[in-house]
């Protein structure tokens, strides 16, 4: 080992210490409710989504009457062979159900993290076709939306400001619709990680690399505080295991997860994947925002253990196994 390597090692150690200190000094506000509602409902194919979504929304009862609702699906890139994106038929079912519950308007909004051509993605994923059939929900490309300045409050990142799309800021209710997947950097990608798609690529670039340099877990929690998610409808009909979020094999989990708390939703999804949510770093950090512990989750629908499967994990995430 030469002098340059030693110096490098010392600098890295100092940076790591600084990051740890920063992380300890952070402030994540307490927003946890006494009890969170989560419903797990079996659904073996997307054709059954309309009935199951209606049931799920009855169990979780989101307050959407007269409100402007924003659906944030997970739309990353298209591959005919891989279950990467929230399924368009599920999104369509949710739009219909929300209008039935009296929503004033429903907007589908996403800012894909790898792709600038959202039009191409809308065509190839089938989402445009679904929205055209419905004729009552528009799509907003968050990568190119107008923006509003938000000052981050947690101290978890070095960002002095975050630019958030106006469409998201002006929604009364934000519903995160993640695809249940493992993730090769974060362990899992669920409702909270799904918020990365909110940041405008036109300002931060493709991919939204600035979030990675601030620490993925830190950025997930920072965004969870800056842009609260009110409800979650997670697509676990066809999920992804292993090398997610793009290249893992499909895992037929056969369920949808509904929740009024994104932390409780992600914790439940982890349990469904055979993962201990207490070992997922971003969930530990986000615990003031919602309920991780099953004793504070009012579980409806199916019992988690009856639906849960052991998802394949990359070796570096073997420690997450529940």
């Amino acid at each position: 080992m030469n002098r340059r390597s030693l110096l490098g090692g010392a600098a890295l150690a100092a940076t790591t210490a600084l990051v740890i200190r920063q992380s300890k000094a952070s402030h994540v506000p307490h927003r946890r409710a006494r009890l969170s509602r989560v419903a797990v409902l079996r659904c073996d194919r997307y054709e059954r989504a309309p009935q199951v979504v209606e049931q799920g929304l009855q169990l979780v009862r989101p307050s959407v009457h007269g409100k402007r609702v924003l659906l944030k699906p997970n739309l990353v890139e298209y591959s005919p062979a891989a279950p990467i994106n929230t399924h368009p038929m599920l999104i369509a079912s949710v739009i219909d159900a929300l209008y039935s519950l009296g929503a004033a308007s429903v907007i589908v909004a996403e800012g894909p993290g790898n792709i600038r051509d959202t039009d191409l993605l809308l065509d190839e994923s089938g989402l445009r076709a679904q929205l055209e059939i419905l004729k009552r929900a528009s799509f907003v490309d968050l990568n190119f939306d107008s923006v509003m300045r938000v000052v981050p409050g947690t101290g978890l990142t070095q960002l002095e400001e975050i630019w958030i799309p106006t469409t998201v800021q002006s929604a009364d209710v934000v519903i995160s619709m993640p695809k249940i997947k493992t993730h090769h950097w974060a362990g899992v990608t669920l409702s909270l990680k799904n918020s990365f798609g909110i940041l405008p690529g036109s300002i931060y670039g493709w991919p939204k690399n600035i979030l990675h340099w601030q620490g993925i877990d830190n950025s997930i929690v920072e965004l969870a505080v800056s842009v609260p998610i009110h409800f979650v409808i997670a697509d676990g009909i066809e999920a992804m295991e292993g090398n997610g979020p793009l290249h893992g094999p499909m895992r037929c989990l056969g369920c949808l997860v509904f929740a009024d708390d994104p932390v409780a939703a992600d914790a439940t999804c982890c349990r469904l994947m055979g993962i201990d949510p207490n070992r997922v770093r971003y969930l530990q950090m986000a615990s003031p925002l919602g309920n991780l512990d099953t004793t504070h989750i009012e579980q409806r629908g199916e019992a988690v253990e009856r639906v849960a499967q052991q998802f394949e994990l990359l070796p570096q995430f073997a420690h997450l196994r529940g």
Partner: protein
Amino acid sequence: MSVESCVTIRSQILQRLATTSGHGIEDTALRLLALRNSGADPHALLGTQHRSGAWSALPDIEPLSAFHTALALLAIRPFQTSSVRQAAERAFEWLSELRGLESHWLWQWKFRLFDKQVRFDPSKSGWPWVPGTVSWVAPTALSLLAFRAWHRASPRTAAAAAMLMDRACPQGGWNAGNSVVFGVNLDPHPDFTAMAVLALGGCGPAYEALLNRSLNYLATRLEGSSSPYSLAWGVMALSANGHRDAGNLRRQLECCAAARSAALTQRVLALAALALEDPPCPFLEDPPYPFQEAP
């Protein structure tokens, strides 16, 4: 579609561009370039330049952006007034100072020893989207194009070209900038591929094999596509390199731009107008200004 109707579509697009304004710097820059022969004035774009010399995605916000700075440089080049030349001078100074984080020996050390899941050579560095991150394909390709378009010699350009070569997908083409992650070959994307092809085109035999694979990828990938944004980038890349499928893709773009024109944003309209020029605007003069020979 007849020749007359194609001309009409481009005229309609130009008319819309001339009577509406855009949302951010990408809209403004591409609109200026598309309308450069129709009395467009660069001063609105010059007025949004940050005091550092850079541009960002929207006026008066940070982070500053290499992608938008390079795009603005390409857009103001045809005007060549003294204020344009001064603005360009400051922008090139800013670009010359900005490097991807991987160019620092400390991060090179980290990437070589620890972060090895993404296959790339950290010694080959281009431009990041925004300061404080690593180099990516689009800002590097547009910066390289800007240096070439303005005939600027820079020690950064050969390194940037090497970085683009390094980040190409094994099957040809480019995505945002990760070609192999966790041992898996990632797919290229049409727009990033077209930007890199335009940036590297005409620079010698060292690039030819990769450029040919990438052009063939573009032609195949966009066959049947109905997205004017990717088609426009594809037409410009294929035409600039004399690819046999450029004409077919151009006709496809004309049809799609006509069918979807009401829903298209300024940046897509402007790109379509540029791609429907005859010959399609390749950003560079013919013959293009090269940079230092390939490593």
